[in-house]
């Protein structure tokens, strides 16, 4: 199949169109703006709607409205913008509306910088906004996956009626790699709940206000049951050379590919290293850690943050194996420095 060279952000946007996304609402922010630019060029010709909103708040609420019509819609932003969107994401989660939210993430806190970062992990995996809710979070590691996971994200969103987030460190948005462009999606879902005008049926209401205590609790129980189901069905991870590994390195996104190289280099130097790469950040693929907690002597989390996913790893191995952390902010750890870390660990621990 013929490959085309595409930027990560463009592959993601094209993936959204392939998935039938026909509404994009966003606000410019580096390093995600190319997604909006791509959609602004393409959507009108496809009968879709592109609106550059006046703010991230307006953008996410346009997604709220757009999704309520049953149309596949999305927004994309980065750190500070994603923070602003949290109010709307909470509403969308409770209204059980499907949509895609993309975080091409940059360094924080505050205005931070526009360097690649994974420091929005907590925000993404803990719900982010107010109330008890979760968002499915997918973490691509390359340009092909920027497209493929976007297509998958729209399907997950519709299947579970939930917002889905794609979290990609900034580099992934900017990197160009050859990809195979997928065929247009043909499987769509019935949406009898959509707000389309009540012709021939009872009025539909999209609402998140539940003043009665009983009903509020009931709504929360319904949401939690759905999250349980997602946890059962959708945990995903990639493993590499974990069977005989003394040290398991854990990384997600592009970071995981860099770690993969370090794992190979470490092995050349006699250190048996392996990799677990969570693909779903929520639900976290904790089962993949059960086995390595029995066989490995150490786990090392490598993140472009000051240590966030490491907490989920610790919960997953539950004290059965020590978990260490290596991370940077403003820089993406390179293969050479991770290899160095692995060799140092091996020397210190004697394996």
């Amino acid at each position, binding site marked *: 199949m013929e490959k085309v060279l595409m930027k990560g952000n463009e592959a993601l946007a094209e993936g959204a169109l392939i998935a039938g996304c026909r509404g994009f609402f966003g606000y410019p922010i580096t390093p995600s703006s190319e997604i909006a630019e791509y959609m602004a060029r393409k959507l009108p010709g496809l009968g879709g709607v592109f609106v550059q909103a006046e703010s991230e708040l307006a953008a996410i609420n346009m997604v709220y409205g757009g999704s309520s019509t049953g149309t596949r819609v999305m927004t994309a932003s980065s750190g500070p913008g994603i923070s602003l969107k949290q109010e709307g994401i909470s509403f969308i989660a409770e209204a059980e509306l499907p949509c895609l939210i993309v975080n091409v993430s940059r360094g924080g806190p505050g205005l931070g*910088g526009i*360097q*690649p970062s994974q420091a929005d992990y907590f925000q993404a995996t803990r719900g982010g906004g107010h109330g008890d809710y979760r968002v499915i979070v997918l973490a691509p590691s390359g340009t092909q996956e920027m497209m493929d996971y976007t297509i998958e994200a729209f399907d997950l969103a519709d299947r579970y009626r939930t917002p889905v987030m794609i979290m990609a460190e900034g*580099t992934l948005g900017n990197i160009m790699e*050859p990809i195979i462009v997928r065929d247009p999606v043909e499987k769509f879902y019935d949406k009898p709940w959509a707000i389309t005008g009540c012709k021939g049926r009872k009025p539909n209401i999209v609402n998140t206000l539940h003043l009665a205590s009983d009903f509020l609790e009931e709504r929360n129980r319904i949401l939690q049951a759905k999250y349980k189901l997602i946890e059962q069905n959708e945990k995903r991870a990639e493993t590499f050379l974990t069977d005989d590994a003394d040290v398991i390195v854990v990384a997600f996104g592009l970071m995981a*590919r860099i770690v993969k*190289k370090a794992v190979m280099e470490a092995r050349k130097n006699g250190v048996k290293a392996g990799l677990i790469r969570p693909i779903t950040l929520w639900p976290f693929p904790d089962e993949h850690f059960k086995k390595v907690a029995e066989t490995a002597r150490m786990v090392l989390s490598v993140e472009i943050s000051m240590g966030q996913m490491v907490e989920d790893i610790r919960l997953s191995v539950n004290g059965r194996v020590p978990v260490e952390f290596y991370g940077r902010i403003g820089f993406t750890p*390179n*293969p*050479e420095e991770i290899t160095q870390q692995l060799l140092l660990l091996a020397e210190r621990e004697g394996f």
Partner: protein
Amino acid sequence: MDSEKQVLFAGFGGQGVLSMGQFLAYAGMEAGKNVSWVPSYGAEMRGGTANCLVTIAAEEISSPLTENPVMAIIMNKPSLDKFEMKIKPNGTLIINSSLVDRPPVRDDLKVLAMPLTQVAEEINNTRGSNMIMLGAYLEKTGVVKVEDALKHFEKIFKGKKESVINKNREAFLAGVEYARNNW
């Protein structure tokens, strides 16, 4: 991975550094290889300097990033100052000597220099200096065969005017010629 080649392109904005890298990535892809192109973005982008890292490999590319490339194409002096110490031991620097007025400090590096401004003026195409440099680089390294790269000019420059494509091809060949005669 020995068959994996990574090359850094660095210069100031307007020298066509990013598109030089993109051309190489396209050419590598068309030649059936795995490629990745990573631009510098972020704080590095400010102040007018730009760089990108291209990886070309026969097998799957694990890390498209490196702190220590084996080879760098240095289009101006700030880029030499910034990257000289990061090149792998015994690596190679291809230097635009028109804009770099000092030799590298390190003595383990192989240096290939070209007075790019002069070469470009000779063919009356100062805007094509990035293609001149790319032609010289490919002729010297064979990362992608020169004839393969030439085959894909039309495709890579799809949508551009015929005259623009010809100008670029001419510049590319001037670089090939320079490398053949001087490197």
